[in-house]
């Protein structure tokens, strides 16, 4: 029994040792391995065996080199047999049929499959084919109007390797068939003179610093990682215009209410609110902005409030309690009267609660 097992092992090891099959990709056409839609690449390969083994081969796109892990290429020469000490062949990779996930690198595996002692074995060699199509024509290109600016929008391109967007603007229309982005020679935008080249990050762009009432004509074009420039978009036109929000529409000036108008320069309330401004409001961005607005619109509001006696009464009623509350915090009043008052009110409240419970 032991002799039988030993003999079997010797036979197996000997078989494996002699079954030396190698696959080599000898060349590709085109040599840089880059093709675009409508083109194909030819992969030339060679299978060598040391003991004239025979088997089959298949050429797969993607996967990991294990038979069946990728997609077998679509051409007839993607599968076949090999035998003898050397078999050479070539396989065609068709861009539109085999490279279907858009632009990028595709790994092509040439796999030789053969039997050793009844066991299936395989070896492979691989190469990379790059699909690099020129960028598509921008779709969904539209331009919206704004105040001295234009809002450009376009659909997200299907190409995965768009690197730049070239934006052309001009005050003249260009509709000749062989128009390029360089024909657009607009000037004056804060973003720069036409054509403007931007990194592709999103599908919108704002062209600023344009003249209201002037009609602008615009086109865009994509450029990819391979520096290929695609087809130019359709031309769009738009005119920046004066635009109103709610504040403009209603004549709203904004601004805060002015204690000086109500109480005078040296009044306790005025001093308190001034101290609030100096000690707190100017220390934070948002409140500093409020203070700036105060100085911008203050005089106009002051005159308006002073012309309305009813308004003056109402604002005084609002400002006096506010000033009383914040005075000890900003240092325009001693804190002691407040502490004493709070203590008295608290004592009275406590006495009332005790009295009610009894």
């Amino acid at each position: 029994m032991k002799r039988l097992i030993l003999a079997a092992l010797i036979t197996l090891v000997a078989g494996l040792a002699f079954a030396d099959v190698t696959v080599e990709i000898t060349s590709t056409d085109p040599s840089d391995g880059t093709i675009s839609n409508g083109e194909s690449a030819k992969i030339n390969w060679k299978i060598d065996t040391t003991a004239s083994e025979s088997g089959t081969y298949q050429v797969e796109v993607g996967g990991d080199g294990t038979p069946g892990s990728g997609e077998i290429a679509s051409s007839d020469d993607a599968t076949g047999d090999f035998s003898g000490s050397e078999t050479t062949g070539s396989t065609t990779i068709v861009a539109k049929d085999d490279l279907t996930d858009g632009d990028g690198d595709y790994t092509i595996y040439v796999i030789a499959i053969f039997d050793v002692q009844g066991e299936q074995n395989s070896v492979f060699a691989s190469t990379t084919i790059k699909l690099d199509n020129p960028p598509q024509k921008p779709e969904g290109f539209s331009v919206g109007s704004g105040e001295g600016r234009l809002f450009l929008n376009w659909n997200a391109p299907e190409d995965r390797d768009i690197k730049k967007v070239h934006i052309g603007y001009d005050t003249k229309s260009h509709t000749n068939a062989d128009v390029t982005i360089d024909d657009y020679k607009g000037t004056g935008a804060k973003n720069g003179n036409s054509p403007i080249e931007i990194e592709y990050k999103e599908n919108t762009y704002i062209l600023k610093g344009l003249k209201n009432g002037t009609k602008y004509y615009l086109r865009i074009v994509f450029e990819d990682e391979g520096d290929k420039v695609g087809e130019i978009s359709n031309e769009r036109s738009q005119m920046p215009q004066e635009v109103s929000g709610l504040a403009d529409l209603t004549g709203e000036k904004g601004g805060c209410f002015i204690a000086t108008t109500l109480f005078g320069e040296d009044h306790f309330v005025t001093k308190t609110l001034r101290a609030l401004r100096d000690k707190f409001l100017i220390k934070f961005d948002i409140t500093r902005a409020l203070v700036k607005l105060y100085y911008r619109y203050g005089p106009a509001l002051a005159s308006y409030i002073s012309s309305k006696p009813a308004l003056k009464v109402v604002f005084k009623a609002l400002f006096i309690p506010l000033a009383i509350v914040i005075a000890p915090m900003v240092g325009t009043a001693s804190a002691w009267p407040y502490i004493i008052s709070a203590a008295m009110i608290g004592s009275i409240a406590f006495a009332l609660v005790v009295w009610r419970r009894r």
Partner: protein
Amino acid sequence: MKKFLLALALLIVFTAISAWAQEGTEGQPTEQQPAPSAEPQEPKIVKPHATFGFFAGAHVMQDSHWEKIYSNAPVLYLGLTIGLKLIADLELWGEAGYSVDEGSGITPQGQSTSEKYRIHLVPASLGLLYRLKFSENQFLVPFLGGAANLYYFYEGRLESSEKTDGGKLGYSGFAGLQLLLDNADPRAAASMKTDFGIDNTYLFYEFRYSVVNDWGKKEGMDFSSLMHIGGLLFEF
């Protein structure tokens, strides 16, 4: 609108009458159960002295200018409310909230543009509120009140430094109904009382009419609105 107010008023009146009637019979002897002559008195109920609530609601702005920029769709309004009971169920009542809306600027001809505007509103209110509450276990409690309003506003054009902000004064009147939730889950209610000191929990709905335009000032923003508000109110 008038029908709605009429219905609300009737509801308040009927609820008040029924609650009053209920109050009147509480603690009185009935024919079937004569009052014991020397029974120990029930523990005295300590009435809540303050309220706190939070809510979500919607402004429906009434100004036509608002509609041109921000459409007439209701604007979400979130806020907090507090009340301090002054006399019986009359409260000194305050509220602070926040709303934000986004719209498109228009040309002088009224055409919409691609310029986007965003407006932030921070309304604050101070006023009086009366709850028609006649017993601590009253299931439906109508309330009404009025308040002075100060709206802080901040409108800015997006992707731009242009902005306007300021304050607007106004007033509002409101009415609503609150629904006592304690009876739905008495154990949870008891837990709220012992753990947090909350005596009653209510679900409430409020209708409010606000006039916020610096008392009729023609120039400037007008935040007058109809509001529908719903939320939770806690009495403690």
